[in-house]
Structures are given as C-alpha cells and as structure tokens.
C-alpha cells in the first residue's frame, strides 16, 4: 500500500518533470525561432546599410571623378595659358630684338666716326647697355622657347678641342681685364672630335664662364674637360665668392637667384643657370655644383660622349651663330678707349677693306626700313656699293634688269614672299650670286631652310660691323 503510494508519487513527479521539460523545450524552440527571425531582420538591415554605403561610395566616386575632371580641365587650361604666355614672351622678345638690332647697328656705325673722348665714353655706355639688353632678351627668349618645347637641338660632329680653345680665347680678354687667370685643361682622354650640339655646348660653357668671371675678384677660373667611358664632364671652377650651402639647391631653379642683393650687385636675369640646366637635360646630361663660401665654386655639366672623326666633322666657322655665341658681353669701359673688336680686328682687316670695296656691289633685301637704312650705312662704312630692295619681288625685278651685283644679303622673314622663297626663285632663274641670309632666327630649322632654298651663308641679327665684314669678305674672296 505504502509502496503503491510511493510509486504513484514517483510517477506524478516524473509526469511533472516531463511536463516541465516539455515546457522548457517549447520555450527553447520559441527562443530559437525568435533568434532566427531576429537574425534575418538584422541580416536585412545589414544588407540595406550595405546598399546605402555602396550608393554613398558610388556617389563619392562619381564626385571624385567629376572633381578630378574639373581639376584636369583647369590644369589643361592653366597649361594652355602658360603656353600662350610663353609664346607671347617669345614673340615679344623677337619683336624687341628687331629694333634693338637697329640701335646696335647705329651705335656700331657711330663708332666709325671720329668722336672725342667724352662722346666715345657715352657711346661705350650705350653699346654696353644695348649688348646687356640683348643678352637679357636672349635669355628670356631661350627660356620661353624651352618652356614651350620649341628649342631645337642638333647632333653634329665637330672639333671639340677647337671649340674649347675658341671659348677659352673669347673669355681670355675679359679675365685679363679683371686681373684673374683663365686656364683651359683638356684631359688626354678627351677625343678631338665628338658628336653633339656645339651651339648648345657653347651656350652652357659661356653661361658657366661668364658667371665664374663675374663672381671672381682674385685668383682665377679654370675650364676642365675630362672624359670617362661613355661620359664627358665639362666643369668651370673659380676661386670666387662662393655660394652658401643652403642656397645651392636654389641655383638651378626657375626665377631664383641666390639672393636679391646679388641681383643688385651683379645683375642678370636669374635665368642663365635654369637655361643651362634645361639645355643639358635636353642633351641627356646633368648639371651639378659644388661650392664653398669665400673659397669658390665648381659648376659642371656631364654629357653623354659620342666620338667622331675629322671626316664627319662640320667646320665650325661655317656655323655663323657660333660667332655670336662666342662673344661675351664686353665690360663697360668708361675711359673712352675702346678695347673691343675694333681695336682687335680693324688693323688686320683694314687693308682687305680697301682691296674689295671699290668693286663690290651688294643688293640688300629687307622689308624693314630701319634695317635697310642701318644696313646701307654699315655697308657704306665698309666701302661697299649698296642697292636696296624692300621686298623679294623688288629684288627679283632688280636682278632681271641689272646684273652688276656681287652678292645679295637677304632678310628671311618678309611678308608675301619670304627670303627663302625669293632665293628659290632666283636660283631657278640661274642666278648664281652668293646669297647670305639675314635673320634674327637662328634655329636649326632656319639654317636648314636657308640651305635648302639655295642660300650660301647666314648672318644673325643683330650683327656687328666686324661680323658682317668677315662674312662678306669670306664670300667675296671665294668669288
């Protein structure tokens, strides 16, 4: 009885337990389902947030693309403006050179007159100023040409040793006047002939040398050339004022000079070294500088070396621009004595002048009245007979009626019929007279065009009396 009661109690307990377990199972099951639904709704939220994020990202990317495009457009526009400006500067520089040519030529002519000491002094100031101005304009023109990617480079074989000696000679007088030494050291490894751009190389060394001499008061300047396997190193070292270390980095940068006071003390556009650097880089080389304050500086240009032979070489004397490049600006001499070309060249050539002038008749073709006037005076001063033609058409007319000319000086850029076209027509008419181009443009293309059209030589404006005389003599001698 008691056992039965116990069993019933146990059974009742077990049933209670089972019922409790069932309820628990159901609660767990419901909890699981709740969790599952919660998870799904969270998943959906996550999906939606992801979608919003994706849209946001896409919007941002679109905005970035739009902004980038705007910036690119602005950059293109800025570059376009910069290029327009460079072209404007190039055109202006060119336009300034033409009247400057007139001024310089007139000053040259004045020099031929007998002037008193004071007049000579004033004339020297005017000559020096105009030459300095020409250098500044040339710097600006070169810089804007480089900026606009229009600077021409060529690769010709030439006598390097001769070029270096010429450059050395051209600065020697200037150095001597300052009482400093100027030495040229060419290492035995340096070949006599190389292939490069002699005009640009001269420009680079001229730049280094005029700086070195300008900043050196005691001691001297040396040009050192050494070659090593595939490279050739041109360096110009001086014992001058030197450059503070922190300023060295600025040297080859656009529009920067070591300091403003330097500009005032020594002058210059601050473009020389920038142009030098760009030129050397365009020739696949590199520039560098070492300097110590009050001990001196050493500027160098390392260029790729390409050896050449005498047979391949171009005669540098035929490249008339070199003569211009080789001439450093003369220092101002207030004494009234002229130490420049006149003193050097006139005694040598004066007899030759007399020998040719009475018989030589020159036809000068130029559309610019000032140029014609200056040209006429210059040629008269040299003792030539001159006939003027204001256009190519007029020149062709004159040559068809008269044939007593010995030479033609031809401006290249004339309206309607250019000097090149005029020359072509004359050559077609079997006129064999020497024709010398007169131009302010001295690019490789211009020289090629002159040669192709049948011209025999090239004189760069503005020209000096000595220059024009030398070139004319060369051709008249041949004749």
């Amino acid at each position, binding site marked *: 009885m008691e056992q039965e009661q116990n069993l019933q109690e146990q059974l009742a307990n077990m049933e209670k337990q089972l019922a409790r377990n069932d309820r628990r199972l159901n609660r767990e099951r419901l909890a*699981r*389902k709740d*969790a*599952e*639904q919660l*998870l*799904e709704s969270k*998943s*959906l939220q996550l*999906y939606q947030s992801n979608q919003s994020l994706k849209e946001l990202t896409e919007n941002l990317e679109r905005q970035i693309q739009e902004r980038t495009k705007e910036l690119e457009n602005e950059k293109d526009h800025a570059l376009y403006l910069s290029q327009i400006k460079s072209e404007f500067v190039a055109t202006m520089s060119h336009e300034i050179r033409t009247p400057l040519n007139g001024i310089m030529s007139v000053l040259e002519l004045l020099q031929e007159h007998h002037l008193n000491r004071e007049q000579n002094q004033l004339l020297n100031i005017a000559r020096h100023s105009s030459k300095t101005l020409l250098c500044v304009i040339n710097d600006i023109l070169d810089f804007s040409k480089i900026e606009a990617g229009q600077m021409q480079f060529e690769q010709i074989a030439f006598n390097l040793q001769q070029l270096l000696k010429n450059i050395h000679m051209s600065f020697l007088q200037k150095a001597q006047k300052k009482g400093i030494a100027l030495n040229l050291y060419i290492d035995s490894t340096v070949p006599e002939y190389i292939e490069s751009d002699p005009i640009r190389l001269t420009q680079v060394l001229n730049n280094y040398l005029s700086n070195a001499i300008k900043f050196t008061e005691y001691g001297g300047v040396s040009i050192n050339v050494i070659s090593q396997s595939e490279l050739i190193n041109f360096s110009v070292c001086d014992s001058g004022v030197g450059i503070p270390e922190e300023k060295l980095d600025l040297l080859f940068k656009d529009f920067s000079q070591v300091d403003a006071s330097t500009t005032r003390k020594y002058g210059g556009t601050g473009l020389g070294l920038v142009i030098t650097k760009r030129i050397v880089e365009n020739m696949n080389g590199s520039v560098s500088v070492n300097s110590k304050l009050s001990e001196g500086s050493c500027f160098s240009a390392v260029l790729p070396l390409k050896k050449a032979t005498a047979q391949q070489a171009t005669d540098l004397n035929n490249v008339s621009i070199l003569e211009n490049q080789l001439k450093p600006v003369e220092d101002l001499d207030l004494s009234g004595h002229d130490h420049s070309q006149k003193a050097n060249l006139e005694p040598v050539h004066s007899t030759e002048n007399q020998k040719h002038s009475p018989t030589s008749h020159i036809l000068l073709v130029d559309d610019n009245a000032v140029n014609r006037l200056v040209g006429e005076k210059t040629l008269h001063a040299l003792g030539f007979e001159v006939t003027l033609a204001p256009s190519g058409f007029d020149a062709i007319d004159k040559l068809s009626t008269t044939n007593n000319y010995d030479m033609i000086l031809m401006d290249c850029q004339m309206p309607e019929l250019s000097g090149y076209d005029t020359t072509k027509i004359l050559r077609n008419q079997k006129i064999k007279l020497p024709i010398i181009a007169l131009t302010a443009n001295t690019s490789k293309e211009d020289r090629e065009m002159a040669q192709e059209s049948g011209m025999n030589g090239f004189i760069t404006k503005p020209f000096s009396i000595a220059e024009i005389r030398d070139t004319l003599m060369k051709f008249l001698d041949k004749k």
Partner: protein
Amino acid sequence: MKGIVFSEFIELVEEKFGLDIADTIIEESDLPSQGAYTQVGTYDHTELIQLVSKLSEHTEIPADDLVKTFGEHMLQRFVALYPQFFENVDNCFDFLDTIENKVHVEVQKLYPEAELPSFDSMKSENGMQLIYRSNRPFSALAYGLIRGSATYFNEDIDIEMDDQSSDGKSFVVFTLSHKN
C-alpha cells in the same frame, strides 16, 4: 540548402508522425549536422534526402509523396513567416510568377551564398508554364509548393510534370491549368 527546409521538415515529422519517429530517422541517418538545424544555417541537401528515405522506410509511404506533402506544408509556413510575399498578389499564377524575380531576390539579400533553384515562368491564356532548374533533385518539393499555393489561393489547378532531368541536374517543366 537553407536551414528552414530542414527545421520545418523535422517539425512536420514530429507533428505528423511523433517525436519518436523524428528522433529515429535522425539517429539512423548519418548526418554531419547531427540533426541540429536552425532556420538561418545552411546544410548539405543530402541530409534531407537521407531523412526522407528513412522516413519513407519507417512509414512505408513513397518518398516523392512525402516530399510533395512537405512542399504543401512549407507553403503554409512561408505564408506565416513571410506574409509580405503574399500581400500584393491575389491568385496562384501571379504569386508563382513572383518567385524568381521577387522572392528569390529578397532571399539572396539575406543569404548571398544561397544556391537557389530557378523558376522561369510563362503565363498563357489558359494557364502557365513553370520551368524548374536545380542542381538538386527536389522537383517533388517544387510540386508540393505549387500545390500549396493553389490551396492557399483556393484554386483548383491541374499540375503536369514533364521531367527532362539529366546528368544529375533537375530540369522539370510544370504545366499548370485551371480545372473545368
């Protein structure tokens, strides 16, 4: 295969055949999941095949029939769990037409990894064609779902099954038409 199919299956077995049978078929099958399913998980579809065949053994009901019945039940569960899919449709064909382009799209949002069967549908004047394609052999489940939809919308529909499956891939054309 999505967990909801497994969890609903086990619950249906428990309900129709009792906890013992449910426990037995789980014990007798070789299940990597050990029969612990949740709606939000994903499990190997062969587990369902094993469970169905064990159930068929114990109940002596053909497996296809079991799956068809399960399909019909699933439809009711979907109505309960996801009423939003049934809100803007008022007939069986319109509903079936939304599976591919609406229901599955929503499922994919929650379960981007889900490998869903495709249900291309074409309605015609008298009825519609549903083309079921799947990597798994569950056309009977599809049949049950279609049948369940008809029941839900209270429509009397004939379902013809043209099984063109090959290479272990299901390809079944269901042709549906209203009776009478």
